[in-house]
């Protein structure tokens, strides 16, 4: 019984990682950049939802939508101002710019909302059936898992069966060729950032429902973990991010419960290293042979 409660906790944490990792992996797949500012967009999403619920008194669902809209706009603005001028530059230049954006968001949040933690009230809570509640399954966990699965299915369908999704896949494979086929590459990249940031907002709200304290650095550790999850599953692959996120969450929860609280993170990262040694491009990553 205790095992199940750890397992459920792991799955719900893993679902949050998976949602963040989906955003990471989409942006990486198309822009080939490590967007370190993604974790901070999550934090902004959490704060917007908090403010809208606490100060404006809006219902949870409206707050979530509001925070998604704000994050989407934020993501597109960041992309347009900071990343777009660097499309032709080396990947390190973009990486450092992303780090600059991450510092900026964290410090701006600190100026606006202060360093004192905000206590977030979970966005959902409904009574669970006795048996499930006894196994440690909370309403937040159920909503998180369902949301994650729904997002994953919608995204896969979108990418594989719509015209825009096709454009995205084309851009991620070869930007030059995609442009020649009449695809607006810049708009496709902006769209990807918009989707990724909207997902980050949802992840932010769910993360704050899972661990209710909200500070300006709330997003950075989950951001790194989700990045790890995306690499774990094979970066650029949508099902890979989903599986990677879930596995990471489960490993973390079980390691915390059965091995050591202090070393849970170290174990998560050690598993990542072992996986990458056996499969150097992650669980579902494609191997691209080098040509001379």
């Amino acid at each position, binding site marked *: 019984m205790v095992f199940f409660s750890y397992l459920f906790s792991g799955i719900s944490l893993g679902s949050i990682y998976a949602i963040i990792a989906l955003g990471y992996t989409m942006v*990486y797949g198309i822009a080939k950049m*490590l967007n*370190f500012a993604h974790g901070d967009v999550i934090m902004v999403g959490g704060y917007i939802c908090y403010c809208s619920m606490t100060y404006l008194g809006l219902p949870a669902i409206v707050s979530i939508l509001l925070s998604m809209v704000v994050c989407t706009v934020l993501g597109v603005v960041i992309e347009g101002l*900071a990343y777009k*001028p*660097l499309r*032709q*530059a*080396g990947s*390190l*230049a973009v*990486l*450092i*710019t992303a*780090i*600059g*954006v991450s*510092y*900026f968001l*964290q*410090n*701006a949040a*600190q*100026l606006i909302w202060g360093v004192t933690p905000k206590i977030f009230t979970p966005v959902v809570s409904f009574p669970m059936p006795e048996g499930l509640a006894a196994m440690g399954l909370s309403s937040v966990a159920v909503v998180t898992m369902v949301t994650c699965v729904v997002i994953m299915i919608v995204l896969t369908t979108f990418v594989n069966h719509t015209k825009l999704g096709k454009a995205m896949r084309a851009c991620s494979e070869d930007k030059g060729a995609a442009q020649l086929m009449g695809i607006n590459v810049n708009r496709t990249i902006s769209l990807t950032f918009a989707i990724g940031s909207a997902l980050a907002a949802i992840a932010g709200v769910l993360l704050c429902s899972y661990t209710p304290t909200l500070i300006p650095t709330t997003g*950075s550790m989950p951001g*790194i973990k989700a*990045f*790890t999850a995306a*690499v774990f599953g094979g*970066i650029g692959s949508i099902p890979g991010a989903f599986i990677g996120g879930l596995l990471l969450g489960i490993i973390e929860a079980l390691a915390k419960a059965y*091995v*050591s*609280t*202090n*070393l849970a*993170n*170290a174990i998560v*990262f*050690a598993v*990542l*290293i072992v996986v*990458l*040694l056996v499969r*150097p*491009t*992650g669980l579902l990553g494609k191997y691209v042979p*080098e040509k*001379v």
Partner: protein
Amino acid sequence: MKKLNRIKATTKVDFATYLGVTLAFLIVSALQSGGMLSNAMNSWLVPICCFIVMAVSLNLVVGISGELSLGHGGFMSVGAFSGIVAGMSLAEAIPLAPLRLAVAILVGAACAAVAGFLIGIPVLRLRGDYLAIVTLAFGQIIKDLITCLLVGYDKDGLHIVFNLDGLRTVSDLHLEEGGVAIIKGAQGAVGITKMSSFTAGYILVMVTLVIVLNLIRSRTGRAIMAIRDNRIAAESVGLNVTKYKMIAFVVSAALAGAAGALFGLNYSGLVSSRFDFNTSIMVLVYVVLGGLGNIWGSVIGAAVLYALPEALRGLQDYRMLIYAIVLILVMLATNSDQLKGLLGRLIPGRKEKTNG
């Protein structure tokens, strides 16, 4: 004059770097002895030296060897804590403080080199962003492991306990009467005798520069750069890729360990979370803004960018915000094609550089 012309251009740059660092050291020392530096500025000197060494050593991996490493802070951490243990426990064996500091730095460098070798075996099998994420992972693992470490010493020697379940305390070290606990798990190292000085920092920077510049200009260095430029071509002319990458990685780790030891012995207390992901990223920012593969660029980048947020302290809450904006603007100005074209027209005669 004729003789001077025969010296290679790279050699001139190298000597200019040594000369520049020495001049900077002399000027700052003169200012310091003249009492021109505020207390705050005095406290920056040793960390600046440490971060110059960090940046130069990271440049060896990122710029010269061409592998993105996000875990350089981990090696600094290994060096810092092993250096602190050596510096504290050898207090009686080596009474002379500067010598003890030198031994501590060597111990820190050796431990970090071993860590670098062990980590290098799996890491160097991977490429690109996968390599980056694994170095990040190792940085985090090192941080967490040190959080679980309890170390003390008494007349029997060192006592080390690994606090896996989080329940052990200093009393589990079973120290004899008069024993001292050096590293106390999550509290980090406490009660450190400060030994570092600006002069020691200067010497370490110079030693680092001599090692790195000579390595780059040697046969080994050329091999490392050839592998960076085209791995397959280098392999096909018979270069052992793993060996040369490993040399760059281990030398870099050892130098980071030395910097860590100097850094650790500059404070009375130190926690392992001081060397987290952000520290590694900060050093990477110094390297990239200083110029990839450019050693004197790293020296200047580290010195200026370490001092900048400190100097902006007067702006209080806004300082990191301004730092972030400056960082983004500098990256945009130096890398964006449109802005480069604009600058090229404003400053006539400016050489067009290819993107690196």
